[in-house]
């Protein structure tokens, strides 16, 4: 009998909601056939079948949120072998499976040998009583022992061991103050925190600001709209960026410090930061260099919808080579954005405002001007290059006709 467990599909997920089963008990399944759709912190993923056989039993109901490691369903292996032999095989496969990564992760001979978490019977009971799989609890003790406190911490949703409480004095003072409301720091919020910290601690960021005259682009957009074609501004940005990136490939790159190389990428996958209820997520317009502005527009629209509904698939958020943060609709005139590691640059587009401009005839006219902030990795490029890059981008947006010259 094969046990299908919710496993970590990526990005350190800890739990997932069972959206729906693609099979029912009695169904014949083949290896790698999708069995169940799971909503994780960031996306919807399908769990494939570990082998061929018959679905025997579904254990976890649809709509339930379960921890990684929870058994979702059982599959009876196929073939004419006796059930006992099957069981033995499955058990063997399972121990082999679980022993390997666990041994690697925890480097605890003791745990892998007994296949048993170090915890006292009382601690185990607390975990059982709260339906917690003790194997999911992160031990705070360096020797890997899971304590009662670890289980309670897990219960409260905080996976990481906390530092010891502050000094008694400080506690005494705060005891008199009101207690703050608590927001669980987990799931997507924690993933964001991890990524941001990594990027900022790794990359020496430099940010410069610039203005882009949007008057002509907005006019073009109006004209297109009148002609019955609606294309959003960001779609033009993406196209213009791809063109500029081709001229300045160092911003569509990744630094491989270990091998002392800067990898200039030939794919142009543009990440589009989206704000959702749960936080920031970056769906990706893949192969933007091979797509028309209209296709890009449709891609962005589709990805935005999926992001808001929490239906992004792993493929939708992977492999970006450059990231755009379009905060304009929300306001703001400048920012120091954090690069989407391991990329080398990121641009934030801010609010477009009507401002008095001096035209070539020295007349004051009303123009639409947007500010942008570009952060780049100072290890791979210098300020002058970055300015040249945004200049190239700005020229394409200010005279959108130029985009035509780049059409393939």
């Amino acid at each position, binding site marked *: 009998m094969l046990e299908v467990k919710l496993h970590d599909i990526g990005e350190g997920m800890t739990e997932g909601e069972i959206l729906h089963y693609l099979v029912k008990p009695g169904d014949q399944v083949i290896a790698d056939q999708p069995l169940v759709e799971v909503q994780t912190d960031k996306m919807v993923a399908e769990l494939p079948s570990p082998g061929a056989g018959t679905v025997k039993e579904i254990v976890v109901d649809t709509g339930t949120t379960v921890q990684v490691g929870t058994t979702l369903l059982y599959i009876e292996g196929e073939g004419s072998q006796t059930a006992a032999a099957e069981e033995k095989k499955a058990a063997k496969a399972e121990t082999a499976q679980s022993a390997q990564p666990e041994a690697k992760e925890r480097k605890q*001979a*003791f745990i892998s*040998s007994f296949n*048993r978490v*170090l915890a006292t019977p009382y601690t185990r*009971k607390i975990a*059982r*009583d709260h339906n917690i799989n003790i194997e999911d609890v992160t031990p705070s003790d360096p*020797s890997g*022992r899971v304590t009662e406190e670890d289980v309670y911490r897990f219960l409260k949703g905080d996976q990481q061991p906390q530092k010891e409480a502050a000094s008694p004095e400080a506690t005494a003072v705060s005891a008199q103050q009101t207690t703050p409301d608590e927001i669980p720091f987990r799931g997507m919020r924690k993933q964001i925190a991890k990524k941001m910290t990594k990027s900022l601690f790794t990359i020496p960021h430099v940010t410069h600001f610039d203005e882009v005259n949007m008057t002509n682009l907005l006019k073009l957009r109006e004209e297109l709209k009148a002609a019955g074609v609606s294309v959003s501004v960001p779609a033009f940005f993406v196209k213009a960026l791809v063109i500029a990136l081709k001229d300045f490939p160092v911003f569509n790159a990744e630094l491989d410090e270990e091998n002392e190389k800067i990898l200039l990428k030939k794919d142009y996958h543009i990440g589009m930061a989206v704000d959702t209820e749960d936080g920031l997520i970056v769906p990706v317009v893949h192969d933007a260099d091979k797509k028309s502005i209209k296709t890009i527009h449709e891609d962005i629209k589709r990805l935005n919808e999926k992001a808001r509904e929490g239906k992004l698939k792993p493929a939708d958020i992977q492999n970006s080579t450059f990231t755009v943060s379009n905060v304009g609709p929300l306001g703001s005139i400048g920012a120091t954005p954090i690069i989407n590691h391991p990329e080398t640059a990121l641009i934030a587009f801010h609010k477009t405002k009507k401002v008095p401009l001096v035209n070539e005839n020295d007349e004051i006219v009303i123009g639409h001007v947007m500010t942008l902030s570009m952060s780049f990795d100072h290890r791979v490029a210098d300020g002058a290059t970055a300015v040249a890059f945004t200049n190239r981008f700005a020229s394409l947006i200010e005279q959108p006709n130029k985009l035509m010259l780049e059409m393939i």
Partner: protein
Amino acid sequence: MVVGEISQERDLVIIGGGPGGYSAAIRAAQLGLPVTLIEQADLGGVCLNKGCIPSKVFTYAAKKQAETSHMQELGLPAGEGTFDLSKLLAYKSKVTEQLRKGVEALCKANKVEVIKGKAGFTAEDRIGVENGHQFDIYVFKQAIIATGSSPVLPEGLPKKRGRILLSHEIFDLEEMPEHLIVYGHDYISLEVATSFHALGAKVTILLEQAADFPFEQSVTKELNRLLKKKKIKVMKDALIQSAEEAEGEVRIGFTAGGKEEQMAASHLFVAGSRRPNVQYLGLKRFGIEQTEEGFVRVNGNMQTSVPSIYAIGDVTEGPLLAVKAIKQGKAAVEAIAGGKPEVDVTFLPTIVHSLPPIASAGLTEQQAREMGMDLRTSQFALGGNGYAMITGKKDGFVKVISDASNEIVAGIHMIGEGAVELSSTFVQLLEMAAKEEDIKFPAYAHPSFNEGLLEAAEGLIGQAIHMAPKK
């Protein structure tokens, strides 16, 4: 189904009143569940009436007998008269009867309904109980199968006629064997061998298809040394080919270590294997899943493939020990009552009431090494223990194995006086995932065998007081 059949309704029905079954019944009563216990023979089952308890009466008597020479050394009157087996059998009956009555009284006090008879399922929710001419049907909400197991002779051994004995028969023997051949290699074989030897029989052990005893290597080595000292012959890798009961003796032909051998003795004890008692339950009728050997398959809550039916003890897979049955019995009932019990046999101790006794829990040194554990081991000989000296029980040792990377105790093994009682400490330390310091910190009664454990732990880093430093 018989027309007009009258069935009675029950909530929880437990089939089998052995240690697993009656513990489950009492726990059910404690949790407020109405419970019915069905037993075809005596409450207490094989363990109380034919197994654990009677065998320990013999090992205890043997221990006392072995102490006589030491008693003389102390100037105490001992060694007069001869051993009277009939008195020991009477004592055994008294002990088992008292214990059985104790169980009966407990069941009564807990309002456990006890029904006598042989039970078999007639449907997924009903059970028939046959007692003589009476046949009653009970409709139940939940049932627990706790019917235990029975010893079976290996293939090729003839039906016995009094001289070939299984574990439930040997302690009823009314004449003391002159020469007893013990065929097996498990704890029961060793208990039979050392106790009958101490009580006066000549004993030969044939290790049934085993290269050695199944204990921790150092323990096995010490055991072999002690058996040799007692002049108990151990023949390894043995396989009986033929056995013939004749007037006053049993003759066997066997191979041992590849050589053909013949031997005659007054009696032959056969450990045999154990078969789950499921023949009359009618499990196949509604597809309760069983293993090839017939053991009932259960999940972590002791539930069978039919959710309302549970199974515990010897009738399920795993070690065939009362301790497991008791644990599972309580767990099954707690699960039925809505609790979240767990049965984990990882640190189930191996216990032998041999002379001297053996207790072992956790990893053996070899297992730890095979796992690639960076380990520490330390063996403290009881010869260095003051109380062992006083009592004249200087054989044996305590051995501690720990993981050098985190100092967590991985296994504790002991052969020697006090091992069985000290074993609860071994198990506790392992269950608490104790570190070396957790053994070393507490104060130990002095003088006592307990100090053997302390010194073994101290020896892990070369700091046992009563152990010579390693050169």
